């Protein structure tokens, strides 16, 4: 059978839920509830660093997790220092904040420079992050609009990575940041870190979560949907996860059919 029939089937099965919306109850997994407890445990008004590496291409899948987290942090009057470790994430910092204001319009009175700052791109992956943490004004003397850090009220007391106690690492689909954030920030400065990443990163970070080195993680569209349900802020992730059910059931039936076909052929 020509594989292009399977492609057509996958397209049809994948688009059914968009024409026939379905709402199903969603059980909460352990990683997501730990992440929610971590966000609620952050004291109001504290400074939180936020690495945005969810691009416009992975936003439909993971964006709502990052937007709802930003909304919750703003609702708790936390002051957020945004930065990104990959070039493609630079425009997404502003996009993420605007999405958060859409979720809770009352937040649009937040002042840039006092409640949140956009430091822009930090180049160099692991060594870049290490350099950034040893001397933040040294590596990034100005924020992404060009205003020097001295004139920004939020950055007053922040010189090194140790001055920030809470970190959200929205690593998205990039596989290396979860590891080098643990090695350079958590291991050397002892900060509390929450992760937002794709489904395939989930199993690889369980050792950190069980060891208490990572407070919690939103893994894949399912994790974001559960977090939306926990914080009662409905968003796109819930409908996408329900849509996934049909495609997953179809893939399972396909696998069963191929095994039956293989063993019938062998007899």
């Amino acid at each position, binding site marked *: 059978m020509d594989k292009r029939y399977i492609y057509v089937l996958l397209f049809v099965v994948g688009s059914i839920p968009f024409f026939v919306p379905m709402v199903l109850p969603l059980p909460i997994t352990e990683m997501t509830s730990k992440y929610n407890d971590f966000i609620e445990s952050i004291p109001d008004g504290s400074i939180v660093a936020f690495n945005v590496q969810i691009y416009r291409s992975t936003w439909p899948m993971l964006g709502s997790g990052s937007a709802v987290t930003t909304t919750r942090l703003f609702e708790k009057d936390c002051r957020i220092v945004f930065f990104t470790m990959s070039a493609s994430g630079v425009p997404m910092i502003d996009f993420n904040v605007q999405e958060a204001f859409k979720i809770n319009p009352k937040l649009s009175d937040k002042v840039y420079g006092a409640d949140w700052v956009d430091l822009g791109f930090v180049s160099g992956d692991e060594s870049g992050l290490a350099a950034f943490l040893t001397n933040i004004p040294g590596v990034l003397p100005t924020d992404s609009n060009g205003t020097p850090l001295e004139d920004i009220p939020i950055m007053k007391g922040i010189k090194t990575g140790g001055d920030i106690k809470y970190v959200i690492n929205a690593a998205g689909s990039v*596989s290396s940041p979860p590891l080098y954030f643990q090695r350079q920030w958590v291991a*050397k400065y002892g900060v509390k870190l929450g992760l937002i990443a794709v489904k395939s990163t989930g199993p690889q970070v369980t050792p950190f979560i069980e060891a208490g080195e990572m407070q919690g993680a939103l893994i894949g569209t399912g994790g974001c949907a559960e977090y939306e349900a926990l914080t009662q802020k409905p968003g796109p992730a819930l409908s996408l996860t329900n849509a996934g059910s049909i495609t997953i059931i179809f893939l399972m039936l396909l696998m069963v059919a191929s095994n039956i076909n293989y063993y019938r052929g062998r007899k």
Partner: protein
Amino acid sequence: MNILDIFVAGRAVTSLMLLVFCFMLILIMELNLREKIALKIRRMAGVDAIDEAIGIAVEKGKPVMFLPGQGKLGTGRSGGALAAISTFSYVVKTCAEKGAKLLAPTMLPTVYSIMQDIVKQAYIAAGKREEYDPSIVTFVSPKMQAYMSKVGTMMEEERIGSCIMFGSWAGATLWMAERSFEAGAFSIGGTDSPSTIPFFLAVCDRCIMGEEIYAVGAYLSEDKAMIGSIGGQDIGKIIIILLLLIGSILVNLGVDVLPWFKM
């Protein structure tokens, strides 16, 4: 002022352990290099799989295909490409001995030139300079999609008997494994990146997982420094296993070991 104050606070025991590991690794690598000790890597299941694959191809009278993976040399993570090159020189020798036809399409220029040189040296060493065939190792294309489709069609046209996919693999893993399954070839998959190991495990007949490919590469290349380094790493792992056992025994006997790590 006890001895641990010279270390950065909170990481004293960790840094001490790192220095012990580094010293031990350097010592064993130098001893093995100067033949003071003769470390030997145990017979790897991966090497038996490669011999089995070439044997099956010779029985069927079909060619063997070797794919060195997508790992680049000269970057931080070039262990996979290095292991692929050492394994390729063994495959060339075995194929020459058993008279199996060999095909090796590549997608990276540095890996291509090194593999072309290995084939030339093997034929000169076997004294068959005139039989040296430059078309064994071919440079297909640096673009992953183009490389995948051309190698896929090459597998069907040449009707390969066995397919050895060895090195650092990324996006092209599932496609190559599926094409070699359809061509009915006996396939071996070896990769060090965790996200692609499951695909080789599910689809190939034999799979070489994670760090095993470095050990197979060192075993086949007999490179003293690499074998010494792997020996040092093994001793490091044994130390960690002992720490786990002794630590859990001590903790259960009431001796509180955990604050030591936080000193």
